[in-house]
């Protein structure tokens, strides 16, 4: 079958020291995707640290402070390709303090590898990261029970963790969960099948990653085109060209289609589509294009083009799940900038409906303050209308960030549901 190479983006997650970085190092190393000079350098540093084996986590933990402390601080991106796929890996930190960086890495992922230390089982950070993965609607979770070498490759230890993970993941909205017993350090079931874990019949991690289906993750039904900026060209051979540049976040559009512009509800038709290789008859998500309309309308950045019979909802207030990302405190009553698609509007958190307790995953409705790393449902009042879909239907039009106008920092990320 003639196939074009696609991209799978995946992230690591799980608690501190569960072996995320070591696993990525192992994966790249066993796939022979690390250049020799990088191996030599890491070998040298490992020897200097008095290690007998190469420290695989150093292939991603590249900052001075990370190497000095032996932890991951910020996301590292690594890449590898096989016959059918390009893989984009985000290796994220396990520390609670760096949850914002975990969310950064996870937000664009199609799949998350959740690591669990076989000796420790499911801990609070496992729950928090799995919960975040489910909030972000990552379609595939691959739970790797790691450090099997330290529990004698015991089937019972593995099964116990699987069952305790399932107990709590039943409460999460995740479509596809798979479990793999591994040792990142020894390489069991990462790229090569383990001989010591002969009781496990399933696939290795690499095989699983190569075969995940991501084809249906792009919404090709609901046309949404947030305008990045207007284009006006009137020089040389191009006379009076007015168009709107942007990326199709979802759906398909063809020349001749009727569209309306939000806000304002003005209608028009697609006159031309300028693609990456000149004019094209149709375009689909996630292509970057410019659209020319048959009518001269007043359209600016932040406006969104949709089809008349398939429109997002207009709201001035909304209820959303947010994760607090900034080390700066949330100040009740302060107005924040809500940035969504290419648009911005002022917003106020009217009320905190509940905050999740990460131990029990129960909702605490008594909380009146928000702290860094909290996950909460809030209700927001907006200064003007925005046009939204539910996050589960449409990631781009169902998500936002809240920015503190004074510090310019991103306070929180939100998902509309």
């Amino acid at each position, binding site marked *: 079958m003639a196939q*074009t*190479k*696609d*991209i799978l983006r995946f992230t690591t997650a799980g608690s501190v020291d569960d072996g995320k970085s070591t696993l990525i190092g192992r994966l790249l190393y066993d796939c022979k995707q690390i*250049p*020799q*000079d*990088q191996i030599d*350098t890491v070998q040298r*540093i490992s020897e200097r640290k008095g290690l007998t084996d190469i420290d695989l986590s150093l292939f991603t933990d*590249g*900052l*001075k*402070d990370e190497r000095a402390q032996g932890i991951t*601080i*910020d996301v*590292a*991106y*690594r*890449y590898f*390709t096989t016959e059918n796929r*390009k893989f*984009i890996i985000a290796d994220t930190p396990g520390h609670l303090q760096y949850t*914002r*960086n975990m*969310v*950064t890495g996870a*937000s*664009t992922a199609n799949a998350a590898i959740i690591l669990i230390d076989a000796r420790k089982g499911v801990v609070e950070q496992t729950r928090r990261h799995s919960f975040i993965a489910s909030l972000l609607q990552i379609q595939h979770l691959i739970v790797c029970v790691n450090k099997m070498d330290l529990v004698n490759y015991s089937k019972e230890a593995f099964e116990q963790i699987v069952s305790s993970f399932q107990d709590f993941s039943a409460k999460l909205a995740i479509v596809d969960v798979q479990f793999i017993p591994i040792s990142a350090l020894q390489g069991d079931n990462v790229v090569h099948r383990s001989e010591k874990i002969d009781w496990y019949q399933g696939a290795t991690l690499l095989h699983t990653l190569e075969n995940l289906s991501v*084809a249906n993750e*792009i919404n*090709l039904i609901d046309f949404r085109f947030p305008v*990045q*900026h207007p*284009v*006006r*060209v009137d020089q040389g051979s*191009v006379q009076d*060209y007015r168009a709107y*540049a*942007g*990326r199709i976040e979802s759906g*398909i559009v063809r020349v001749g289609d009727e569209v309306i512009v939000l806000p304002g509800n003005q209608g028009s038709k697609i006159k031309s589509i300028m693609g*990456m290789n000149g004019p094209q008859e149709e375009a*689909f998500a*996630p*292509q*970057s294009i410019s659209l020319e309309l048959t009518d001269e309308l007043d359209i600016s*950045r932040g406006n969104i083009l949709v089809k008349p019979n398939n429109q997002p909802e207009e709201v001035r207030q909304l209820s959303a799940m947010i994760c607090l*990302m900034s080390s700066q405190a949330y100040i009740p009553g302060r107005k924040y900038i809500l*940035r969504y698609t*290419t648009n911005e509007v002022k917003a106020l958190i009217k009320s905190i409906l509940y905050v999740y307790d990460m131990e029990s995953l129960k909702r605490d409705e008594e909380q009146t303050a928000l702290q860094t790393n909290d996950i909460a449902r809030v209700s927001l009042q907006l200064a003007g209308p925005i046009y939204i879909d539910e996050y589960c239907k449409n*990631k781009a039009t169902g*998500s*936002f*960030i809240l*920015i503190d106008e004074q510090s*310019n920092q*991103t306070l929180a*990320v939100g998902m509309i549901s």
Partner: protein
Amino acid sequence: MNYRLNYLEELEAEAVFVLRETFAQFQNPCILFSGGKDSIVVTHLAAKAFAPGPIPFTLLHIDTGHNFPETIQFRDELVERLNVRLVVGKVEDSIKDHTVQEELGPNANRNRAQSITLLESMESNGFDAAIGGGRRDEEKARAKERFFSHRDAFGQWDPKNQGPEIWHLYNGRKNQGEQFRIFPISNWTELDVWEYMLKENIALPSLYFTHDRPCVRRKESILAQSAYLIPHESDKLVDLNIRFRTIGDMTISGAMESTASTVAEIIAELKEMNQSERGNRADDFRSESSMEDRKKEGYF
């Protein structure tokens, strides 16, 4: 019709989105143009992103004074062809103004000095964002970069305190005097760049292809012989068939022996190669964290 992008189309769409966000969110962005393949790809992507209009960014070349003549010729032809504005920031000028002290000794180079000249050029031209061809796969500190990477009023990167960057909601807000570095091709690998060159038939400086050149062998490295190179006693002068894998300052861009004369041959060669792209850049040898250190000081 098959409504799927292949990996190169997806990377292209992502980069174009980032370039357009840069245009929309900043007052006066520039493209850092070194004449190397990555900045050539970024410039090519910018031409596509704003077609049929012109590229709305100035090209900024930070000139160490140690240029390959081929690079300068290529740069000037490209500027002419694309009809873009070019600004050249010269390390020599910073040296004359005493804001940069020329390094001394046998391994002196002007690599660190570039950061100062870059910051000075950004300030004097009022650039509030610099778009670079940096890729996460190049180097371990680069692997940690955001698409929109914040720099404080002194141009410094703080890798331990980067803000979150969720989905593709890029937050380019900043205080007066601060700036951003933008990396549209963050997710491209060296091979992706070459595959894209092939697909798009992008013109490149002749330095990337095999040619006969007087060189200096210095330990593991091959450097182009030139008047700028400070001779070492152990240097061996040789005539070799080489090409360059990265192009920058003449005194630090390592060459490799190769017979690849087309992009397709370069791709074939790369697939067999087991050595990092920057593996022969003298500037990265200095210490294990030299890239991180330079980036903290304001480097690309």
